[in-house]
């Protein structure tokens, strides 16, 4: 199965890629790992006349962390992030990176590509919304910093302008005592999740001081579950309050019926995963080691 014909250009730098993409116009698209883009092109989804290969631009795959925060280059692969010290330091990052598809896809797919695809089933936008991350871009009009939350405006539609590239992401190091978890449910490893949930929370005197919850594959874009958060912020985590948060999350989501399941099925998965994500994050915030990731049917 071939993609339709296209011209191939290799960019040596971010600046060169921006220039090439701007000159080539609407039919041009940046190619990073290609794990979404090439699949789309084989299915004739999108009409691309030119690919600008940014995969060889050096210095865009770094993973840095210090007390202030974490910075990840757009070309860092899922595998690279999964193997990094960061994935151990922040288990929520490891949950996500290790759970994406399979070894082969993780070898090639990049965090920047996952964001640029605008696909609500991709995991990084959900994880990065949970961590309130920023996304850094560079384009013909200069550099921009945008919140990941809201970056995807509609199904496969992002805030990226023509010729603009994602260069990296960053987020503040979670405060001491804050912990998170990323859980997903899917048919098998290479499949996209049926539903995925990210939770980051901090407890104080037995109460939930702060919490962020985001869901993937639960609507046309990543869902930031603000109502579910409001059910728990400043409250004690009990089976009853968790159930209220899970119900609120279901109300905020808008899953579609597809080959991965009916709406009712997905709603039941949302409830289970929201509770599991919160419970895992709570246990981790109390110092427990809990291993979670995507689970299969």
């Amino acid at each position: 199965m071939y993609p339709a014909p296209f011209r191939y250009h290799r960019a040596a730098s971010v600046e060169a890629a921006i220039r090439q993409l701007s000159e080539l116009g609407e039919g041009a698209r940046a190619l990073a790992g290609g794990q979404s883009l090439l699949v789309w092109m084989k299915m004739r989804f999108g009409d691309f006349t030119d690919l600008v290969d940014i995969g060889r631009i050096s210095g865009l795959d770094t993973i840095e962390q210090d007390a202030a925060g974490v910075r990840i280059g757009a070309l860092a692969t899922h595998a690279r992030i999964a193997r990094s010290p960061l994935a151990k330091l922040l288990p929520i990052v490891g949950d996500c990176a290790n759970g994406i598809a399979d070894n082969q896809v993780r070898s090639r797919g990049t965090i920047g590509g996952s964001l640029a695809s605008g696909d609500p089933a991709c995991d990084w936008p959900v994880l990065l919304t949970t961590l309130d991350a920023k996304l850094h871009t560079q384009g013909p009009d200069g550099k921009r910093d945008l919140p990941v939350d809201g970056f995807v405006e509609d199904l496969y539609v992002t805030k990226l302008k023509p010729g603009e590239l994602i260069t990296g992401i960053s987020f503040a190091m979670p405060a001491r005592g804050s912990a998170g978890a990323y859980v997903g449910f899917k048919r098998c490893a290479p499949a996209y999740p049926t539903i995925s949930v990210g939770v980051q929370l901090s407890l104080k005197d037995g109460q939930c001081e702060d919490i962020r919850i985001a869901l993937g594959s639960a609507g046309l874009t990543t869902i930031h579950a603000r109502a579910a958060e409001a059910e728990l912020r400043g409250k004690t985590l009990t089976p009853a309050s968790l159930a209220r948060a899970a119900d609120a999350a279901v109300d905020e989501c808008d899953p579609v019926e597809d080959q991965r399941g009916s709406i009712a099925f997905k709603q039941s998965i949302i409830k289970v995963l929201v509770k599991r994500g919160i419970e895992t994050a709570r246990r981790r915030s109390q110092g427990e080691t809990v291993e979670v990731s995507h689970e299969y049917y």
Partner: protein
Amino acid sequence: MSTTEPIALVPVEVTVNGQWYRREVEPRLLLVQFLREELRLTGTHIGCDTTYCGACTVLLNGAPVKSCTVLAVQADGSEILTVEGLEQDGKLHPLQTAFSEHHGLQCGYCTPGMLMSAHALLAANPEPSSKDIRKAIQGNLCRCTGYQNIFKAIEAAATELRGKG
């Protein structure tokens, strides 16, 4: 607005199983087609063609990839290992012997991909747990064996290779 004018061919230089090749290819040529049709290395199979089944798995600079979802031009300058590169001097690789001895295949369609994923695992982790083995081939589907004999074969090969080390 797909393009109708002729597309410029792009040079691709790769080392496959230790041998250097140079070809001029259409940008849309997939790595799996490059290996099978340009280099006539047909051991790498095309299964689902949708990044799902893993039959087309090869090692690109040591990392397992699904070669149906890599452009040949993306592999330019790389070292590639395919299933043909496992056998040395007419002797099967211990993984191949173990798959044969433990009946780790039935129809054999998924086997090249299974072998390459297993090879990547054992290169990185000579003493894998049973969970490590399961995780390593989670991107490779087999529709015949039920996987148990594949797990046994990889375990046996790991033991054999450790003995040699």
